[in-house]
């Protein structure tokens, strides 16, 4: 298939692997930010092609993993109501809250629907005027424009039975949280190509300077990742720290202005709790006052709900790159994709699930 196969070519992969081996003289730890990249790395075994001295750490860029447990519980509460049609991306249905997941609400009769675009929920809302239609808006800057457009259209069209349970998060504050933590191991980042397609990469330039850390905007195919790693190691070896762009076929420095405009129209920057990591200031998007009428937390009176995360899951350390999934005592034992104790074991983009799916031989034998 055109435009895909050329990025999954064994000979080119070998060439990049050789180049990386040639320039690497020191041990380096590089974090890929996005869960899509983690998935590709583990699925294709990309780290087999890297020198032993290069470690890939898996970052916090999986929306399923970082959505706070309170919000999952709020989703369960709303989705259980008989007057609600609850719409979500498929991945979120298996994420455990403190009392089950959305699949179990569905099994008990909750009307939960998987959508591919938030705009689909407006059609559902128009077709079901006697129901409240709620969209579970998770994800990074990549999914925020479509959510914003949905709210904007709902407002323009006067669709009153639509609302949003919103938990959008932003990448740059998370990178700063990782870099400024005392146990940080990350020496360079592969930034998420899709996020930067929307936002560009000017907002990474101050981070690069402040922490003297290279950031390479990178795509998702095996060759993208190998090239991103190569560019990052080249900077590290040369003592440079710059924001570079590997994913030029999709990302411009300034990003997609129209998408940014619609985000700014509907959302404002708010503090956000990240599952496993904790509160990060100015790290999320919330509805502006002008659109507050579409806020599901207010509409269903659950804004004040809080709860505690189980202490069994070390997802925070995994998401910050401090620990690898298999360093967790519960990995592959009590925590499996069928019974996730924490969110990184749920989504195929979650580091733990990716490790479990593609590297589980030894762990299954030991358990």
């Amino acid at each position, binding site marked *: 298939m055109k435009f895909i196969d050329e990025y999954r070519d064994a000979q080119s*992969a070998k060439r990049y692997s050789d180049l990386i081996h040639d320039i690497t003289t020191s041990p380096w730890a590089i974090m890929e930010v996005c869960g899509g990249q983690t998935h590709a790395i583990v699925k294709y075994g990309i780290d087999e092609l890297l020198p032993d001295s290069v470690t890939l750490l898996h970052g916090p860029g999986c*929306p399923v993993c970082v959505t706070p447990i309170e919000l999952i519980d709020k989703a369960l509460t709303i989705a259980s109501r008989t007057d609600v049609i609850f719409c979500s*991306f498929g991945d979120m*249905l298996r994420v455990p809250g403190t009392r089950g997941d959305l*699949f179990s609400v569905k099994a008990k009769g909750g009307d939960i629907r998987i959508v591919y675009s938030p705009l689909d929920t407006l059609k559902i809302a128009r077709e079901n005027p006697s129901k409240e239609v709620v969209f579970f808006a998770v994800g990074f800057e990549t999914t925020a424009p479509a959510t914003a457009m949905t709210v904007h259209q709902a407002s323009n069209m006067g669709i009153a039975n639509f609302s949003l349970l919103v938990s959008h998060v932003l990448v740059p504050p998370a990178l700063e949280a990782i870099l400024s933590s005392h146990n940080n191991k990350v020496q360079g980042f592969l930034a998420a190509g899709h996020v930067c397609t929307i936002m560009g990469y000017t907002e990474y330039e101050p981070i690069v300077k402040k922490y003297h850390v290279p950031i390479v905007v990178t795509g998702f195919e095996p060759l993208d990742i190998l090239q991103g790693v190569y560019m990052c190691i080249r900077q590290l070896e040369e003592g440079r720290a710059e924001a570079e762009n590997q994913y030029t076929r999709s990302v411009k420095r300034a990003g997609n202005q129209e998408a940014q405009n619609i985000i700014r129209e509907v959302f404002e920057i708010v503090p956000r709790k990240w599952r496993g990591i904790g509160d990060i200031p100015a790290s999320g998007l919330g509805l502006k006052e002008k659109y507050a009428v579409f806020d599901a937390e207010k509409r269903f009176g659950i804004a004040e709900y809080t709860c505690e995360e189980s202490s069994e899951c070390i997802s925070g350390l995994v998401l910050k790159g401090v620990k690898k999934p298999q360093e967790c005592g519960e990995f592959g034992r009590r925590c499996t994709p069928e*019974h996730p104790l924490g969110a990184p074991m749920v989504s195929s983009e979650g580091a733990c699930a990716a490790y479990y799916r593609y590297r589980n031989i030894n762990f299954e034998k030991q358990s």
Partner: protein
Amino acid sequence: MRDIKDFTLSCPISVQEYPSVMLAHGGGGKLMHSLIDKMFIPSFNNQMLGAQHDGAVIDLGKVKAAFTTDSYVVYPLFFPGGDIGKLAINGTVNDLAMCGARPLYVSVGFILEEGFPMETLWRVVKSIKETADAAEVQIVTGDTKVVDKGKGDGMYINTSGIGILEHDIGVSPTKVQDGDLVLLSGDIGRHGITIMSLREELALESEIKSDTAPLSDLVMDLLEQGIEIHCMRDLTRGGLGSALLEIAGASGTHIHINENAIPVSREVRATCEILGLDPLYVANEGRFIAFVKPSDSEATLKTMRSYNSESSLIGRVDLKPSGIVTMKSKISTNRIIDMLSGEQLPRIC
């Protein structure tokens, strides 16, 4: 008589684990296998069920018969390349063929919802007749039930089938040996992607059609040539990945496949890329894998290709690590193929 201790009185799927049945319990992945392994097989415990084949092979003295059953709940009822009736016949015919049997007799049970259009029922019945004629099986018994409006999804069908083993070579996962080659009878993922495109209202413009087809002619052709097929499995809900894992598990072998050798059409690959799905786990209704010794592989592949030119040699069997499937990826690294919990979920970004 079986010792009473074999049978536990408490529910083997603990209430804490799953207090109710989830969709994934029927998804062809780990949850479904756990239900079968923990609840059904121990409860109905016998050797034929324990073989975990697509159907049971029953020794009737002078002849050996294969017996199988399957239920069809597909929605929508009609889709490019077929309909629920065609699936219901081909599915049961194929399960019998996978036992190495010639399919002969099929039962059809309808569960209809009150208010279901008679004209639609007639379309399905005509399709069942046409498919049965093509597969050379007879519908010899049946059943009809109607449930209240709102308590069914229009139509469900159950079919059971009986076939006769004309070549008793004992096709079974336990026959899979070190050195066997794995052959695939065509490109994968067509049925799943056809249904998903319709069901999810993706409005994707594609020409893709379900691959639903009877496999019995091809299987009989292979057996009549004297090819000693060690094992066969048709690829259904869990796709190629799950079928390979079932065989690796049941035979205690290691199966190594080559991603570059697995045929996937352009449309299926493109749709999988858009939805974030892996074609290895997408459903099929007219494809199977066969395990043969190397000296039989050329003849097998030649015959398979006379039915479907995309047929391919995709891998080989060795002994260790037992129960595992690995794949050489397109970039020449190796990965483990694991069974999914339930159905694949579309990824967020």
